[in-house]
């Protein structure tokens, strides 16, 4: 702040006069530096949804601290969050729109840039039809923004080519919940942490990727000596430090372990026959179709997975499998998993088998008993999964394939009947493949960095940026320069989360409001404003019906009202989560159909889940505490008999190592934000490759030396870090660094799960050499 001497003197003189007349109290206030004003908000990083207090002084975001009053995170935050003030105010924030001219991005006015984007989209739609354009969004955009984009593309333009980066991280979890329970999203909540006695952590480096959840688990374990932790992961990540039982299967071969645990549980009569009889059904896929089978068939199927047989398949010692199964059944057990299960070509199946264990032991819907999928982004749940911003779904559990659901949304949106196509759009990988074939002519990318985050990245980087005749038009909306903005034809500067007001929905179904506390730098605008402008221009160009969006919404508050209404009579019903409530409370967990409903800790439980009290799923014959899987066929959750298939690209003689990618605590995803905080960058300034010391010795690789990682798709370089973390024959490389040699996603495989369409980031075959 710069003030003149004259201004200061005047202030002092005024202060003195005021002091003389008011007793000095006001004058003291005038001369003191402005105190920090603390505003309640939610963290911008992972899906834990930590409550934070943002400190504002003189119109600047000067500090962040944990919100001790937050009901679930209780004031805990991690290092990434603490450095958000620096990240938000990074010097290299994008501040003005840019248009590529003669191969170079040059500053432009908003009007010029928006007109160009709208013209390109309109031209493409008019010439090649609605399916020639696409939207690729993010689990980091606000719920209102994702909902608006979904509304525009599906109900306005008439294409289901709407995708988002949760396809890369959460799609298999969605597939698992939907195929087992009939509806997406966890049924339990963080409250269960306080009641669980056994934590089953699978394919999740909770200590680094969800540190606050890990801290809560750790605190529970420290407070109660009977709390045990089972870890199932081929890499000994920091959570292995607290593991009582550590199962490290060969990468991609954990399905036999799940089946074997089920085998032990049933064989030792540790299962819950009453729960199974009342709430479960058993299915197997034959000739591409699910077929009902009996419990006895399931038991017979499990005979192929005795601990000894599972050991041969997975490499996990039989006695450890038995021990883990016994502990799991003893419970109360809460399971957590993330990308280790999801980013697989059999991700949905792995999720199913996780649910199987909870179902056969009846460990669902009671305190401390729940299968809980953790999410990696702040709004993958609320913003993309719940708002239906993926190519096959519509808001709040609806499907594009169901005529009734399409009609409901067309009516609510005021779209012409028949606008929403009945066929799902292109999933993320197929969308970018279509871009490479120039079939998609224009794409809008919002708040995400596919130029670095997509698997087999070289191919898709070329698809987005390689100059060629008829190259598709790419518009990127982001707050920072990234490996994707460098490929774009138009770059629009976006406001960050603290510069706009909106809702994030985190892992435990809690919707939380983050208010605007500061102005965005330069000419940056919120994604919501940009999308409104874009929609209005498309209306003017005649490719979206006039008045479909333009004039209907002025702020995110307006669209929130429509979103609440869209949840009516669905399993998500959050009509009671009003804007005013969100401003006053520290988030509310849906379902919450009325403004006085406190939110739901456990779904499917009579007395806790309001969906069982009123509406289409109501059942007043149930007693309090009884469970009903109201969204599942015949109200029974499905125990799936899945074959134990391995990864799509197992190691071989030419590529003998398995590469697995992931994160470190201090960096988040592609590092777009965390690399902007000097301290966080210094903590991990360069890419590293974890190698088992036995492998390193065999290859003559020393700690700190450069290694070359090559797959059938590409090459990356990193610094060797010898650590007995990955099992032999496996290496681990985080994907947070953007420089070309470290871009590990040039190496990863873009094969995907046939059910969830989620790519198999976790497993691909590579060879390792000294660089």
């Amino acid at each position, binding site marked *: 702040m710069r003030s003149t001497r004259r201004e200061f003197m005047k202030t002092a003189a005024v202060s003195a006069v005021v002091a003389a007349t008011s007793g000095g109290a006001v004058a003291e206030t005038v001369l003191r530096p402005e105190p920090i004003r603390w505003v309640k908000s939610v963290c911008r990083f992972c899906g834990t949804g930590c409550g934070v207090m943002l400190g504002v002084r003189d119109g600047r975001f000067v500090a962040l601290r944990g919100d001790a009053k937050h009901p679930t995170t209780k004031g805990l935050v991690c*290092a990434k969050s603490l450095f958000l003030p620096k990240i938000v105010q990074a010097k290299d924030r994008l501040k003005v729109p840019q248009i590529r001219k003669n191969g170079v991005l040059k500053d432009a006015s908003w009007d010029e840039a928006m007109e160009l984007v709208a013209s390109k989209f309109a031209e493409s739609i008019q010439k090649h039809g609605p399916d020639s354009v696409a939207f690729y969004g993010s689990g980091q955009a606000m719920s209102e923004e994702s909902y608006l984009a979904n509304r525009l593309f599906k109900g306005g333009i008439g294409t289901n080519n709407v995708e988002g980066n949760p396809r890369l991280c959460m799609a298999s979890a969605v597939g698992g919940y939907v195929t087992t329970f009939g509806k997406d999203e966890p049924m339990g909540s963080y409250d269960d942490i306080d009641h669980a006695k056994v934590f089953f952590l699978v394919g999740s480096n909770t200590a680094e990727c969800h540190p606050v959840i890990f801290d809560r688990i750790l605190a529970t374990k420290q407070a109660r000596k009977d709390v045990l932790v089972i870890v199932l992961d081929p890499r000994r990540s920091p959570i292995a430090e607290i593991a009582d039982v550590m199962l490290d299967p060969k990468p991609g071969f954990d399905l036999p372990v799940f089946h074997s645990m089920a085998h032990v549980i049933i064989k030792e009569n540790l299962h819950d026959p009453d729960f199974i009889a009342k709430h479960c059904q058993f299915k197997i896929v034959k000739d591409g179709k699910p077929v009902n089978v009996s419990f006895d068939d399931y038991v017979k199927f499990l005979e192929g997975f005795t601990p000894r047989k599972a050991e041969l398949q997975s490499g996990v010692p039989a006695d450890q499998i038995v021990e883990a199964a016994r502990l799991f059944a003893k419970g109360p057990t809460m399971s957590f998993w993330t990308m280790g299960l999801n980013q697989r070509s059999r991700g949905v199946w792995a999720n199913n088998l996780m649910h199987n264990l909870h179902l056969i032991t009846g460990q669902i819907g009671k305190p401390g008993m729940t299968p809980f999928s953790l999410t990696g982004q702040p709004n993958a749940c609320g913003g993309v999964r719940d708002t239906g911003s993926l190519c096959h779904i519509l808001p709040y559990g609806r499907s594009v394939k169901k005529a009734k659901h399409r009609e409901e949304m067309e009516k609510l949106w005021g779209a012409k009947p028949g606008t929403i196509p009945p066929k799902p759009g292109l999933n993320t990988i197929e969308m970018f493949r279509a871009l490479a074939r120039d079939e998609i002519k224009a794409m809008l990318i919002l708040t995400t960095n596919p130029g670095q985050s997509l698997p087999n990245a070289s191919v898709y980087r070329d698809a987005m940026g390689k100059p060629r005749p008829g190259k598709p038009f790419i518009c990127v909306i982001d707050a920072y320069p990234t490996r994707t903005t460098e490929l774009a034809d138009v770059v629009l500067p976006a406001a960050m989360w603290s510069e706009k007001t909106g809702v994030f929905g985190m892992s435990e179904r809690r919707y939380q409001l983050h208010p605007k506390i500061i102005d965005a730098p330069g000419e940056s605008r919120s994604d919501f404003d940009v999308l409104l402008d874009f929609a209005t221009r498309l209306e003017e160009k005649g490719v979206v019906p006039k008045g479909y969006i333009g004039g209907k919404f002025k702020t995110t508050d307006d669209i929130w009202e429509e979103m609440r209404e869209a949840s009516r009579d669905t399993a998500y019903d959050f009509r009671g989560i009003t804007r005013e409530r969100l401003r006053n409370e520290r988030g509310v967990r849906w379902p919450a159909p009325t403004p006085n409903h406190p939110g739901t800790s456990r779904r499917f439980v009579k007395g806790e889940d309001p969906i069982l009290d009123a509406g289409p799923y109501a059942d007043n014959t149930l007693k309090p505490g009884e469970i009903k899987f109201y969204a599942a066929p015949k109200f029974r959750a499905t125990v799936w008999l899945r074959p134990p298939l391995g990864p799509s690209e197992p190691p071989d003689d030419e590529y003998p190592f398995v590469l697995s990618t992931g994160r470190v605590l201090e960096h988040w995803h592609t590092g777009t934000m965390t690399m902007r905080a000097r301290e966080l960058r210094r903590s991990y300034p360069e890419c590293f490759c974890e190698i088992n010391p036995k492998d390193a010795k065999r290859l003559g690789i020393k700690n700190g030396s450069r290694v070359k990682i090559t797959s059938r798709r590409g090459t990356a370089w990193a610094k060797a870090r010898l650590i007995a973390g990955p099992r032999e024959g496996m290496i681990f490389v985080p994907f947070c660094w953007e420089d070309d040699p470290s871009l590990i996603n040039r190496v990863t495989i873009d094969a995907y799960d046939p059910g969830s369409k989620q790519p198999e980031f976790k497993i691909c075959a590579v060879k390792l050499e000294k660089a």
Partner: protein
Amino acid sequence: MKWCPEFIVWALLALWLTPSCGSDGCWGSDKSKASAEAEKPAAQPAVSEEAESVPAEVVSKPSEKPPTAVSAAKPRQEKPRKPAARTADTPRVQDKSKAKRKPAPKPKPAAKPTPQDEEFALNAFPPTLSDTKQHRKAWRRNDCLRCHETGVGAAPEVRHKGMPDLLKVAKCRSCHVFEPGKKPTERKRPPIDAGFAEFAFPPMIPASAEHRKAWRKDDCLLCHEDGLMGAPKVRHKGLPPLTLKAKCRTCHVQVRVLDSDPKRH
């Protein structure tokens, strides 16, 4: 009714000074600096500054001061010292005692640091170490980076921009000289994180071998709980109790390597 006499003084001062100020005069501008300089006696600032910074024992025993090249080079980065101020028989001590009897003068606004201040490590000789308990301890253990790499305890962070990589890993004693009796400078260097709230960011953890070990074992509290080996004790006042049970790494990040990409500053 509570009165604030300072404000009355300021108000009177304001009314007296306002007509003489240029309409474009502002804090830190060359013009206002020049006028402020013109208003005070030329030698006074240097004397008063040094009187504050040099302890009486050192003044009375000038021969104990090591004649290092670095101390000889001092004038290049600080204002020239008055030779008279270095001996006991100069009137400076008397001035100091007189000053005690007089009412303390109003502190003037601190001068805006020059770019040279900010880049002192680049443009001048390496700064000498002041004689403090922490510095003596760190000097013996060659443990300067514990504070100066991380910025803990308001220690200026090392900014060795433009230096060869080799120097980043060299011992601090290769270039920096310990100066017995030297008091810490009172000049405020601009903090790297100016503009953010004080203590907004948790201190970083140095890259020393001990810290690396502790990091792997997650036993930071072995030293930091009771102040073992001179480790600063944890002071997590105001944080929820659960935080104390959490892993230190959740909030504190460890320095691995000095910055290699200056473009990202």
